[in-house]
């Protein structure tokens, strides 16, 4: 009877925590998923200052600020408790996201538009920095001994599922509205919708009690008076923070972002797949792969967390190049057999050429002359069918499996590395440096490397971007193999 009651309680904890964290990931990713639209509305390319703010909004807010959020809210979480802190992060994220959807365009309020977007994006980053550590800690501290991997893995599904939902919401919105409507105001819907989600999650969370481990520590007077100092000013604890980052989170971050974000970017910019098709392929792979987070989290309770995570890194760094080569070849038009070709002159300034290939692939080249600058803009879009789409989905799915291997167990791993009184602070920083910095900057770095290789006429330019995740994962695998133990550090498990 007691076990059943405990299980019921844990499911409530999982539900409340996961719902909120899912919404936070959705809020965070919706910005990235709609970045192209946002850039045209708030950051006109012809204004250098606005373009610079766009850069700041993309990089500084999205990634760099997350560790600061981890420190700020981690400290609060270790001082006043997990529950209230990640209630604050939830409301902060939801509010910021909703307001992004309400900001008038650059045409309406000029410079204030990109400035407001930047500020709100910064708040999103801060909130995300505080949310994950709180949710993972909260769930882990409710989980029975020996089951932390399983129970925290539900939290781990929220990042991928949040990305999936953001893609679904966008696709549904686009399907309901015309292209003109979506461009005019429809893109605001996913942002505004967030406030409803957050409100529901808030109602659920506010009824949850504080984590039992933290409550006990507070009653005993053993909570920290200065979490930041004890986390990073204490040599004994700092060495574990560094180990968590360089032995686990760093590699996990690049594997996560390669498999989801870089693969999406790669399909759209290197393979020239249409945006909707790339999203559909990625969404399908995510949906099929998400349950494996639970599996590997559960498995880590049986065999230990270390080697599951490290095996995921090893598989990734060994197979990324062949996987991405195979992906590229699936849309390499030079190796396909042409069936028919047609050209349509839309108007005096626009021409569309369509090629059809034997495997059902459609390639469309749109040439549009700018009447003012007299420059011709060429856009290539590829659409695939049948077995090609299945193979692409399978190749993305393999990468999702790697993600589940490195990400499924890591919440439990990080929680178990640090003591209750500074857990929220200590685990949050390496996680968000690994994911926000090493992982978050990956799409930009990898895309940049690919672009430069292409300009340099490298015949394998499409693989150049992979050197960054491969090197990072290799170093992380080596450090993790040598220095990480496969069992929780009992001295820090209290």
């Amino acid at each position: 009877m007691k076990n059943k009651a405990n299980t019921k309680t844990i499911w409530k904890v999982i539900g409340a925590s996961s719902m909120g964290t899912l919404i936070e990931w959705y809020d965070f990713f919706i910005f990235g998923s709609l970045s192209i639209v946002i850039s045209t509305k708030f950051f006109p390319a012809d204004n250098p200052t606005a373009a610079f703010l766009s850069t700041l909004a993309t990089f500084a807010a999205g990634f760099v600020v997350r560790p600061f959020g981890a420190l700020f809210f981690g400290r609060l979480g270790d001082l006043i408790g997990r529950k209230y802190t990640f209630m604050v992060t939830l409301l902060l994220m939801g509010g910021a996201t909703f307001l992004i959807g309400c900001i008038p365009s650059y045409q309406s309020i000029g410079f204030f538009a990109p400035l407001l977007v930047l500020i709100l994006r910064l708040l999103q980053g801060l909130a995300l920095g505080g949310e994950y550590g709180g949710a993972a800690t909260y769930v882990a501290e409710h989980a029975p001994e020996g089951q932390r991997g399983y129970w925290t893995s539900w939290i781990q599904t929220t990042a991928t599922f949040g990305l999936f939902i953001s893609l679904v919401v966008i696709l549904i919105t686009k399907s309901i509205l015309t292209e003109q409507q979506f461009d005019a105001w429809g893109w605001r819907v996913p942002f505004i919708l967030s406030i409803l989600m957050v409100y529901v999650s808030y109602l659920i969370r506010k009824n949850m009690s504080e984590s039992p481990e933290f409550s006990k520590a507070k009653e005993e007077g053993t909570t920290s008076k200065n979490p930041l100092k004890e986390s990073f000013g204490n040599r004994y604890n700092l060495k574990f923070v560094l180990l968590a980052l360089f032995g686990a989170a760093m590699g996990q971050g690049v594997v996560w972002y390669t498999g989801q974000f870089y693969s999406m970017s790669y399909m759209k910019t290197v393979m020239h797949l249409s945006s909707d098709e790339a999203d559909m392929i990625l969404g399908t792979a995510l949906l099929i792969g998400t349950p494996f987070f639970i599996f590997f989290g559960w498995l880590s309770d049986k065999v230990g967390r270390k080697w599951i995570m490290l095996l995921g890194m090893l598989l990734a760094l060994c197979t990324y190049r062949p996987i991405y080569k195979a992906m590229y070849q699936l849309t390499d038009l030079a190796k396909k057999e042409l069936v028919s070709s047609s050209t349509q002159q839309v108007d005096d300034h626009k021409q569309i050429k369509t090629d059809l290939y034997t495997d059902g692939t459609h390639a469309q080249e749109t040439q549009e002359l700018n009447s003012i600058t007299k420059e011709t803009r060429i856009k290539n879009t590829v659409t695939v069918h049948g077995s090609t789409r299945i193979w692409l989905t399978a190749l993305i799915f393999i990468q999702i499996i790697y993600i589940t291997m490195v990400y499924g167990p890591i919440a439990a791993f990080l929680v178990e590395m640090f003591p209750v009184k500074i857990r929220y602070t200590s685990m949050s920083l390496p996680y968000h440096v690994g994911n926000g910095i090493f992982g978050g900057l990956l799409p930009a770095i990898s895309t940049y490397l690919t672009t430069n290789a292409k300009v340099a006429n490298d015949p394998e330019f499409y693989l150049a971007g992979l050197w960054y995740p491969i090197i990072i994962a290799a170093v992380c695998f080596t450090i993790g193999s040598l220095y990480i133990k496969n069992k929780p550090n009992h001295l820090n498990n209290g």
Partner: protein
Amino acid sequence: MDNLKKILGLVWIALALFTAYFCLFELAIPKIKVGHQEDLVFGIIIMFILTPIISMGLGLFGYYALCGEYAKERT
């Protein structure tokens, strides 16, 4: 194994120093000098974000390893 961990501390320190040099002088500074926005962004990322984290963090990790902080009896 503990001795290996200590010795490898030198490797991590060396890797940190090499990374700092390579990131700054081979990647960041040349890109920033080019002046294009894309290159400027890349240079800023390397110089002000990745380089400090890797060189200082990995260097400190290597130092701790060299001092035996990750020996079995101390963890």
